[in-house]
């Protein structure tokens, strides 16, 4: 019916977008975010919150796998765009709107995943029995047609928590790590065993002198305000991380993509934007993105406006007592590094602000190595850990310490 189609098109005119940027596509991501901000399309928080999955560049094999899992968790109606270049961005987004608003679910997949496209069930289909769902995930991995995949996996399972997740064929371990999260399903089963393909949690001594449940979780490689491709594997007790390890997915191709030579001020603003997003300050994050995007313009007056914007947001963040109060003391990196990356999260935020202000003598901090950061994550809460990761520039070239041969 025409009316319902128009209503649908209207409702989907501002879809929520989840951006996955493959390594080396920073400038492209900025361009896309600028366009999304201009259109008023919000950024999605999780697969459940997503209408459009936007993949920038060519993801490596592991990231591609993670993206597929993510995609299987996105609810209909949905649309996936693989953007290799930003030249036809406007056109592609218009196309996206058209595809989203048009129609039956089966038309929503952008050709990337034909196998998943067929399942256009009605929402009632989601009430499959849990049991059936588990079995699928257990034995058949994630290669279902889209709809069923969603029924079953959500983004829960992940990692099949537990010791066992790691010992699985890594292929499968990755399958379940797209967005972080893990089953808390069976806390505290002293006798071990498995439920729904998830091993039960075990206990271990914790911070408060109680031996409570430990979950093995993987967080990343795609999260809002999180460096795409970064994977945090950790034991989780309540929301306290113990035994954290960081790694890049697809870390083998490091030499081939040298760090792009980006505008330091824009990079600082970008870092601030993602940190402010994680810190739950969306208005300031929006202003930082806006300033960052403005600095790319060529016109003299626009550039001046953008500089003023950058200065305004940097000063606002620098002076914010609430932000200082809430992040102070988190994530002390050892100072003997001698670089500008030491101090706590607040120090680093202020340093980013200085760089964003464009003041002389402020060089951006040299990237921190993953091991250094992982050491600080030890014993922090999940939220604090996210703040710490968002506050440092991470060394992309650092080789993955885990052996990659198994996967390749």
């Amino acid at each position, binding site marked *: 019916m025409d009316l319902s189609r128009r209503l*649908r098109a*209207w409702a*989907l005119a501002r*879809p929520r977008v989840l951006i996955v940027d493959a390594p080396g596509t920073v400038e492209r991501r900025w361009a896309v975010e600028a366009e999304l901000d201009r259109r*008023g399309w919000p950024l999605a*928080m*999780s697969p*459940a*919150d997503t209408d459009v999955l936007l993949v920038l560049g060519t993801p490596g094999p592991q990231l591609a796998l993670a993206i597929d899992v993510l995609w299987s*968790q996105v*609810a*209909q109606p949905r649309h996936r765009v693989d953007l290799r270049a930003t030249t036809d961005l406007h056109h592609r987004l218009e196309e996206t709107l058209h595809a989203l608003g048009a129609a039956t*679910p089966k038309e929503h997949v952008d050709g990337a995943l034909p196998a998943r496209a067929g399942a256009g069930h009605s*929402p009632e289909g*989601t009430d*499959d029995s*849990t049991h059936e*769902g588990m079995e699928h*995930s257990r034995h058949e991995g994630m290669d279902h047609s889209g709809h069923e995949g*969603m029924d*079953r*996996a*959500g*983004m*829960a*399972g*992940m990692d099949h928590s537990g010791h066992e997740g790691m010992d699985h064929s890594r292929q499968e371990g990755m399958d379940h790590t797209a*967005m*972080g*999260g*893990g*089953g*808390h*399903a069976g806390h505290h089963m002293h006798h071990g065993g498995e439920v*729904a393909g*998830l091993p039960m949690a075990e206990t271990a001594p914790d911070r408060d002198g109680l031996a409570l449940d430990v*979950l093995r979780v993987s967080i990343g490689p795609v*999260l*809002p*305000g999180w460096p795409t491709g970064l994977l945090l594997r950790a034991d*989780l007790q*309540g*929301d306290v991380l113990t035994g954290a390890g960081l790694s890049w997915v697809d870390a083998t191709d490091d030499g081939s993509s040298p760090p792009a030579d980006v505008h330091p001020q824009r990079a600082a603003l970008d870092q601030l934007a993602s940190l402010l*997003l*994680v*810190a*739950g*300050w*969306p*208005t*300031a994050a929006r202003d930082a993105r806006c300033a960052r995007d403005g600095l790319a313009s060529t016109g003299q007056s626009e550039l001046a406006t953008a500089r003023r914007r950058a200065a305004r947001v940097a000063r606002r963040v620098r002076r*914010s007592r*609430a*932000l200082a109060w*809430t*992040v102070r003391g988190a994530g002390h990196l050892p100072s003997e590094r001698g670089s500008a990356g030491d101090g706590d999260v607040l120090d680093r935020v202020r340093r980013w602000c200085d760089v964003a202000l464009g003041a002389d003598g402020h060089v951006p901090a040299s990237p921190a190595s993953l091991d250094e950061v992982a050491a600080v994550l030890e014993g922090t*809460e*999940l*939220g*604090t850990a996210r703040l710490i990761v968002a506050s440092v520039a991470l060394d992309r070239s650092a080789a993955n310490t885990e052996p990659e041969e198994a996967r390749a």
Partner: protein
Amino acid sequence: MPEAETAAAAWGVLPAALLVTGVALGLGWLVAAVDRVVLSGGGGAAVLEPVRSSVRLLTEQRRTTLAPDRLLWRSGIAAVPVLAVLSMAVVPIGGRTLWSSSADLVWFNAMEALLWAAVWLVGWGPNAIHALTGGYRFLAQGLAYELPLMFSLITVGVGAGSLRTADILSAQAGLWFVVSMPVAFVVFLASAAAFAFWGPFGAPTGADIAGGVTSELSGVDRLLVEAGRVIFLGATAAMAVALFLGGGSGPWLPGPVWQLLKTVAVVVALVWAGRRLPVLRPDRVVEVAWTVLIPVTLVQALVVAVLLLSGFYAV
């Protein structure tokens, strides 16, 4: 004490209930629209965005996760908006409440406590780590804010000599309670934002945990939870107007208009102030709630009690 006429008695139960639900939805829309305008940095067109989001969520598929606790998850999701509307039952609309008893304030508080359990269920149900973390955060935050909220409500009750909303309104005929109870007013608004896990108290749905309790919700589930949140916030703003700002009292204009204007003003102020702050991390906020807010609200109650004894309030 004359029995205050309730809306249910005046217009019949069903029309009154429909009216309250309608007002609740309107308030929710108001909060969501103002929030969207502030978030997107101006632009009046943003007022339509909540409607657009609602329609989109209605057409979206619901999703599920691996081994969820479906019963508890769904009941938690359904409970959030229902409780929000129930809390509206004791908020006066045009000088009348839907339901009136001798314990209106406690009723309002109980709905917020039940919300507590409901949100925890929404976090527990999907069997996912981000959602569960959000649920725990809300539990800790709610526990810390329950007492200051209770004390600020009690302060109002002491001042009016009654727990009935209608009596509180009439007790403010001379002077608005905000004048003698500024601390209770601020604490009430802050705790209300904490209970709606919104703005600076939005850690349970924070971006650092991918949306927390809402991270696994899509379609109508997400719509219900989000609607419950904004209605709660709107209900609190309306309640703050009734408890501290004299309800519909004011010169020239009729009462309901004044009440509406004040409610809109409180919503705008709340959203504007709330969005100027980052999320305050729960471990910091909770300590302040326990060690600062509780004593401060107790002192506020003491001050009001002394004022009451000295004949400050015309009760």
